[in-house]
């Protein structure tokens, strides 16, 4: 399916699937400027949703709100039909967020970084880490301190977490910015694989996504 086609699942199709994430009547203003209001959307298993909008339209804010990092909003967010504040631990256990700042400490090696950030959810073995590093194209870099890596390589370290985590929902804020062509391909494949396994992805990017799975668009410029 081409990236430009907006694939919206047929309505009778929806009835059989339980939505993973639902947002209802979201409203957010910052510095007395409305970023978005009455924003509703539903994310089903197997979907990749691309959040679009011009600079400063609130893409990052929306993602942070959905993760529960930002609480200055009105409206409701449901995970598997339950308010995310009601069973926060269950929600966080199925969430993987990679923000603008990727969460890679520059003093530690890639392996030490991954070991810690995975242990926050569930511990992983060294073999798992090696495999994941190989998959994102960093074979042999596991024990290199991250300050000796380029920005793109650090981004790849954070993307290795996608392979190491059992989370169902991925929330990725501009994951493509520092990646080279090959890195972009790897990430697109990862997204498609995740969707195929019944996971869901929320991603912001200005990049033209080319994924062989259901791709939906959410344009924040229309939601003022």
């Amino acid at each position, binding site marked *: 399916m081409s990236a430009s086609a907006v694939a919206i699942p047929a309505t009778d199709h929806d009835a059989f699937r339980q939505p993973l994430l639902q947002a209802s009547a979201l409203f957010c203003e910052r510095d007395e400027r409305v970023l978005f209001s009455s924003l509703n959307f539903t994310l089903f298993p197997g979907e990749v949703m691309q959040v679009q909008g011009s600079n400063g339209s609130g893409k990052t804010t929306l993602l942070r709100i959905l993760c529960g990092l930002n*609480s200055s909003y009105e409206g409701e967010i449901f995970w598997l039909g339950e308010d995310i504040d009601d069973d926060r631990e269950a929600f966080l256990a199925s969430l993987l967020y990679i923000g603008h700042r990727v969460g890679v400490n520059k003093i530690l090696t890639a392996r030490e970084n991954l*070991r*810690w950030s995975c242990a926050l959810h569930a511990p992983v073995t060294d073999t798992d880490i090696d495999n994941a590093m190989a998959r994102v194209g960093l074979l042999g870099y596991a024990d290199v301190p991250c300050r000796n890596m380029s920005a793109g390589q650090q981004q790849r370290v954070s993307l290795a977490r996608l392979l190491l985590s059992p989370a169902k929902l991925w929330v990725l804020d501009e994951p493509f910015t520092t990646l080279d062509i090959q890195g972009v391909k790897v990430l697109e494949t990862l997204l498609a694989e995740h969707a195929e396994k019944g996971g869901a992805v929320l991603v912001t990017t200005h990049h033209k996504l080319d994924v062989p799975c259901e791709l939906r668009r959410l344009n924040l410029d229309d939601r003022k």
Partner: protein
Amino acid sequence: MSEQSMTVQRSSVARQQAQVSTFAAFRATLRRDLLIALKRRNDLLNPLMFFLIVVSLFPLGVSSDPNELTRIAAGTVWVSALLASMLSLDNLFRADYEDGSLEQLLLSPQPLYFMVLAKNISHWLISGLPVVLLSPLLAYMLYLPADAYWTLLFTLLLGTPVLSLFGSIGVALTVGLGSRGLILAVIVLPLTMPVLIIGAKAVADVSLGLPLGMHYALLGAILAMSLSLAPLASAAALKISVN
């Protein structure tokens, strides 16, 4: 087996698993922070050097007369320990805030209390414990009476963790600020004064031959209270700062 008992069993297994993973996450966080400190020797050495330098300012600034130094020894060591702890507080969350690790910590499904506690413990091990261990040497240089050494060591051992725990709240509140300047000190120092008062007084009192049970009990109570409450406040403050 009835369905109900199955559910009960399953949920108790789930709870046990959750406890295991909480402990694993706690240990991983502690290990990570200690590792970072070991890789950056400065973090280990600077508070210690600062402590040493501040203490040696007092004989130069006040008087080198042994009698006078004996009198101010306890207070000097305590004030210097307080300042050294303040100086090193910035390491606690700043780097994590800047590289995004703090967001990962906040999004951990584990109770945030334990994650913050792990970071506070590692901060104390890095900056508090070395100061405690160095204190007898400095006490000697300040002519503290020999019978007060153990008191100094024990009160510092009980008091410096409180400095880390209270300090952590202040850092968590100010970590998002672009220009912090001295605001951290303005917020944190008044909070730590009870510890300073009791600690310094214990060392002074032992030289007078007074009983010390009360001092230890008060310090212990403050430590217990801050161990159970301060990480919660820090966690809440981190959520506000990251917002």
